């Protein structure tokens, strides 16, 4: 099974989840007459579920097309072309983790104290190995932004429990 087929199946699953679960639970249908347990609206244009349902059906149809399109490819083509597997570098996962940590720290300790170490860590993750450059940029840039945005332009930056100057 190719990558596209797997993605197609996931998309079909998402569409079914939307149709049977997320839309009925996530969107109210006020004003509906409940006939046999199914809400029926007199004026369908008033239904908040109408457009999401249409989109969900369309997503399901395209998901099926994506899956079947791959399955019906000529065997010759499947032998000749090998679709590269989606490869995710560990570095990318680490950087995602670092940025999630940055998000959590931002609201807790504030912009300046969170950004300085995080910028340094990110630069190291992206391959910078000169500690002088890392420290210089990681300290100078957030400070500069803090002064220009926070003190001169008086834009409110994220604050936390640690005091700002």
């Amino acid at each position: 099974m190719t990558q596209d087929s797997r993605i197609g199946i996931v998309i079909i699953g998402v569409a079914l989840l939307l149709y049977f679960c997320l839309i009925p639970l996530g969107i109210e249908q006020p004003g509906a007459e409940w006939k046999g347990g199914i809400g029926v609206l007199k004026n369908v244009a008033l239904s908040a579920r109408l457009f999401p349902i249409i989109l969900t059906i369309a997503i399901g149809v395209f998901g099926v097309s994506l899956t079947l399109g791959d399955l019906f490819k000529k065997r010759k083509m499947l032998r000749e072309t090998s679709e590269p597997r989606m490869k995710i570098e560990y570095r990318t996962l680490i950087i995602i983790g670092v940025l999630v940590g940055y998000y959590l720290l931002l609201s807790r300790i504030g912009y300046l104290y969170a950004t300085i170490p995080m910028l340094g860590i990110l630069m190291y993750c992206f391959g910078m190995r000169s500690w002088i450059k890392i420290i210089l940029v990681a300290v100078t840039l957030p400070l500069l932004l803090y002064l220009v945005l926070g003190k001169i332009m008086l834009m409110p930056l994220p604050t936390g429990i640690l005091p700002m100057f």
Partner: protein
Amino acid sequence: MLTAITDAFLSVLNPVSIGAILLGVPIGMVIGAIPGLGGTIGMAIFIPFTFTMPTAVAIPFLLAIYRSTTYGGSVSAILLRIPGTPEAAATLLDGYPLAKQGKAGKALGLMLYASMIGDVLSDLILIMLAVHIAKMAMKFGPAEYFALLVFSLSIIGTLTGKSIIKGMLAALFGLLLATIGMDPIIGVPRFAPLSIFELCKGLDFIALLVGLFGMSEVFIQADKEMAAFFGSTKIIEDSPNREDRRTSWTELKSQLVNIFRSGMIGTFIGAIPAAGGSIACWIARGVAERSSKHPEKFGTGSLEGLAAPEAANSAVHGANLIPLLTLGIPGNAPAAVIGAALMMKGIVPGPLMFQHHTDVIYSLYASLFIINAIIFTQAVSWFNRSARYFVSFPRGLIFPVVAIFCFLGTYLVNNSMFDVATMLIMGVFGYFLRKTGFPIPPLVMAFLLGGMTENRFRQALKISGGNLSIFFTSPLSLFFVVLTIIFLGTMTFREWKQRSKPTPKT
């Protein structure tokens, strides 16, 4: 009208607006020159900072970034054989050989003139046509508008990316994300549980934009080889011959027909939603090659091969604004950002802008010409000489800074950590979309158009009492429906034929 135009120029010719353009142009040039960034990412990073700016400052600032990134991208294509933006890929084919011959100055000069002429041409066409298209659009009812939006979204979904199905899926997901929040007609929450009350106002467009373009690019760059992070590239030296370092008037004159023709191609293609510079440049180059007396010189440093794509991809700038201003449908992702910026200021792009906000329209026109003039002066005065150093910036420095800007910019729009979380989630989502071959622009543009699309659809149904035939009984609506079916059918057939072709044996 002359008074309005004069007033518009005067409104932009104030120190603050000029200052914003003077700041935006070098930002855009540097961003464009750095491979991996581009106009949309540049605008996405800086749009949050325009939130507190007046409209007459914010829009010129963003337009300045947009226009100058294309120029910056072409510079790195010529000097380093690395297109800074996708549109610069065609420029590289003749620009880099010229630079290798020691004629980098000539290449940069001709590129600058071709860009300026292409830009001015499309700006003039925008000014002449926009008001007429807007008048036509005023006659559209909800059914016609909905059919037009579906047609536009089908173009956006099919022309961006390599797979029609994935492009359409991206557009559909964008429309679905736009339904999060309060229902616009009856006011019930949709996909917004009470425990996450921030969802009631829907996903913030800026957070989505910054995440999908800016943050996802950071993750994509993180995937690249470590060596890519050390931008050490050989810098090409110029020839000692003065004639090789500049474009002569004779050379420019010989390219004027080519430049005008390519500018018209770029304008026409740019006016079609989603068909942007990355398509226009190749078509213009192809036409120039077929019309050339020396087609064999293309790819070896031909001035025609350089001027044609440059004029075309610059002409796209003004043309992209035509559907945005007249119909409210962005021509491409950067135009979508301009649309978002206008909406942030309480101005809804569309035909009613020409009635209620003519001052904004004329100011926008005026700023287009002023931006061109400033790009020209900055390119000549310092950028062309120093671009080679920006291109060599280590990525290990650039992308962490981009990430921090993404966080800070998103927070500053609404002072909301929820928006920052949205941005980060969208960044991860965008990363996986790109890894699996799904294009981002259809998702973003569909999200922007989602509210309008649903409103028109439901308004049409209310008028018809729930009868879908309203979309087929109106001649204009039927026209767009048929056009959509023909377009989707043609593109699907072409893709199927492409995929059915046996792979050539090597």
